[in-house]
């Protein structure tokens, strides 16, 4: 077997987009292959968990761990790979801050399966069958991974060396992060967020900004944005202002508002709180002198009315990693 340093990529609760992003390195993937032995990656190579278990501790040079911690199996794999890896990288939004799987944290755990297995209009489930951790059948007992009460990030269940955000991380940023790890002047300090810029998406966005004064918000289907002005200035809820720089401003470049996939900006804990702060400061409420509380708050609520699903919009990618992490009681 090859004596190149071994690396691994593992998906926990994820969609597989991060693996696609890795393959999107295109011909650079050959450089990766020349330098490393991709020892374990269920999406691409055929080694199994038992092969990881057989390794000595720290025998994997680097593990890219994508996906959130939703099940007990995710948790076990996170701990196993931590033990076997010198460098563990939280790869992509799910591992870094929970991403879409973490939106489950808005629903009490007891109701988590209801929309799919019980309430869905096109589902008939008279026997009330829902996935169980263990089921006894004639041939013996069957098990599937147990759903944990709350979705957590990789960093919340084990020690992480580097964080690489993005849904998925942009290939040139993955390359940049890998290059930084093997740079002659040594890797970045442990715990760093890698493959990102210092500011927000706005710093990379080419649209013109003015003093923001928003009377109402529009959903994307309600308005055709002009091509040059900041989308938020036009009343379209662009999360770029509360999102970490890294992607190159891809979405606003093609007339789509940023939905926040690179997570909160550097030094910030909570993307939803950042977006709340931003929106609070750009509403155009007219003259307020002498206004009673009811009237003032009424004007605000009217301006905010067009925003659908506040938590789902502001925490689309970052709920598990946010200050509250989801519902107070799950």
């Amino acid at each position, binding site marked *: 077997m090859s004596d190149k340093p071994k690396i691994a990529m593992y998906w926990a609760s994820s969609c597989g987009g991060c693996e696609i992003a890795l393959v999107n390195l295109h011909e650079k993937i050959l450089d990766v292959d020349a330098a490393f032995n991709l020892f374990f990656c269920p999406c691409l190579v055929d080694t199994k968990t038992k092969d990881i278990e057989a390794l000595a501790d720290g025998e994997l040079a680097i593990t890219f761990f994508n996906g959130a911690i939703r099940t007990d199996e995710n948790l076990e794999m996170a701990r196993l790979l931590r033990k076997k890896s010198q460098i563990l990288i939280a790869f992509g939004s799910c591992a870094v801050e929970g991403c879409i799987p973490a939106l489950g944290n808005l629903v009490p755990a007891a109701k988590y399966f209801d929309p799919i297995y019980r309430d869905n209009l096109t589902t008939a489930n008279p026997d009330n069958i829902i996935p169980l951790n263990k089921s006894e059948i004639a041939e013996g007992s069957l098990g599937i991974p147990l759903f944990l009460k709350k979705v957590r990030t990789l960093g919340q269940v084990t020690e992480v060396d580097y964080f690489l955000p993005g849904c998925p991380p942009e290939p040139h940023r993955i390359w940049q992060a890998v290059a930084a790890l093997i740079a002659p002047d040594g890797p970045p300090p442990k715990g760093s967020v890698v493959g990102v810029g210092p500011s927000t998406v706005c710093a990379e966005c080419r649209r013109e900004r003015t003093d923001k004064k928003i009377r109402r918000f529009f959903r994307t289907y309600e308005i055709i944005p002009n091509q040059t002005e900041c989308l938020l200035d036009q009343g379209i809820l662009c999360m770029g202002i509360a999102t970490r720089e890294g992607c190159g401003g891809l979405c606003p470049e093609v007339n789509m508002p940023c939905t926040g996939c690179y997570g909160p900006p550097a030094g910030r804990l909570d993307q939803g*709180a950042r977006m709340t702060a931003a929106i609070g400061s750009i509403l155009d409420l007219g003259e307020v002198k002498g206004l009673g509380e009811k009237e003032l708050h009424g004007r605000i609520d009217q301006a905010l009315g067009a925003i659908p699903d506040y938590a789902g919009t*502001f925490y689309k990618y970052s709920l598990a990693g946010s*200050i509250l992490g989801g519902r107070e009681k799950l």
Partner: protein
Amino acid sequence: MSTTFEAKVVGFLCNWCSYAGADKAGGAQKPYPHNFKIIRVMCSGRVEPEFVLEAFRKGATGVVILACHPGDCHYKTGNVIAAGRFRLLKKLLIQLGIDEKRLIMEYISASEGERFIEVITKTVRDLESLETAPA
């Protein structure tokens, strides 16, 4: 029902209005609930939404933001910005399973020492009955 529950209430008070109002009440030796913990800020617009979420994460029963009356903010629009954030935070809290009544914003001027006492006494009482109310 006998209530042994003691709320932990965090109040962010604007330096120019409600904090001065609280000072006035203090100067006049008016008692107010000891479990209302005051944090002085230069303007209600300084209250980052993170502060509020962090207070709830650390176990606050309620968070109170006291600001100058609309149009009277020392920095012109700080309180209007705070009000926008406050309304939006309430909507987020509902989705996060936190009773929105636990986040309160009131407008109190420097001369309203009496009103300061009334408002926070009532607020603390309301929060305590909220917590002890049978679910």
